[in-house]
């Protein structure tokens, strides 16, 4: 999915830079030298800091139960029993959380669900 330039480059994988310590030990001379202080730099992506986003499907009275189950199986790869469980949750409770995780992937799922004409939203818990 292309959602514009704002998040371009926002999928940076976790980068961990650890600069090692160099110990120079000279026991005979009775001196210990530490060449450089430890610098541990950790950069996390926007998505990771945002974890988790939820993909929520809402009830609508028109979509057939069998159709909704089929869509859950196709989009999320869920086995039939799990897909049916979510479908029934949508039907009875009005909504079901189908997936949670990184924002970019959640957006892609919501787009796919809209492609099947399901009422789906991206939500952040809290």
């Amino acid at each position, binding site marked *: *999915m*292309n*959602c*514009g330039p*704002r998040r371009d480059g926002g999928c940076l994988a976790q980068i961990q830079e650890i600069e090692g310590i160099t110990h120079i030990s000279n026991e005979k001379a009775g001196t210990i030298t530490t060449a450089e202080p430890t610098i541990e730099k950790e950069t996390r992506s926007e998505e990771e800091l945002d974890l988790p986003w939820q993909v929520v499907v809402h009830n*609508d*009275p*028109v*979509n*057939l139960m*069998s*159709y909704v189950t*089929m869509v859950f199986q196709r989009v999320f790869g869920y086995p039939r029993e799990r897909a049916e469980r979510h479908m029934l949750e949508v039907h009875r409770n009005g909504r079901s959380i189908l997936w949670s995780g990184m924002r970019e992937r959640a*957006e892609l799922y*919501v*787009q796919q669900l*809209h*492609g*099947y*004409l399901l*009422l*789906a*939203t*991206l*939500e952040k818990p809290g």
Partner: protein
Amino acid sequence: MEICRRKSAIEISELDPFLAELLRQIPASANPDGAPAAEQRLFSPPTNGKDTELCAEWKMYVEPELRRLFQSATETVADDLEQLNGDEKTFANRTLRIPAKHSDAWLSALNQARLAIAAKNNFTENELNDHFRSPIGSRRDLSLFQVNFYGFLQEFILREQED
């Protein structure tokens, strides 16, 4: 009307002129143009309204893709429906063959049409669950029958896909 699987197609035979006409109306019924309620249902927002930036981006980048997807499905269905425009007499029963490879396009077009009709008519859940209402009465009753008839076809196609 009879519906069955024949080789790699779903065959709907003994289609009387009334049902044939309802099928012909699938592409037009799926079109939300000029009906804000249908437009809103087919292109629903990706969030509960709090993230206006995402909604704006969605409108700009995702909606056009969805429109293309939906249009491609209705075009496939419209092509298949050409079979109903043969040279037979006006009141003769017709046969329609839906190739198995077009099943997904039919599921999408039928769903678009059902959702758009339901949104335009603002059907309640009770009305939608009333499968025995006669189509003869009002335009609203006919629309409800259309939603249920398309739903029946969807169910059949889904069952065929599972087998």
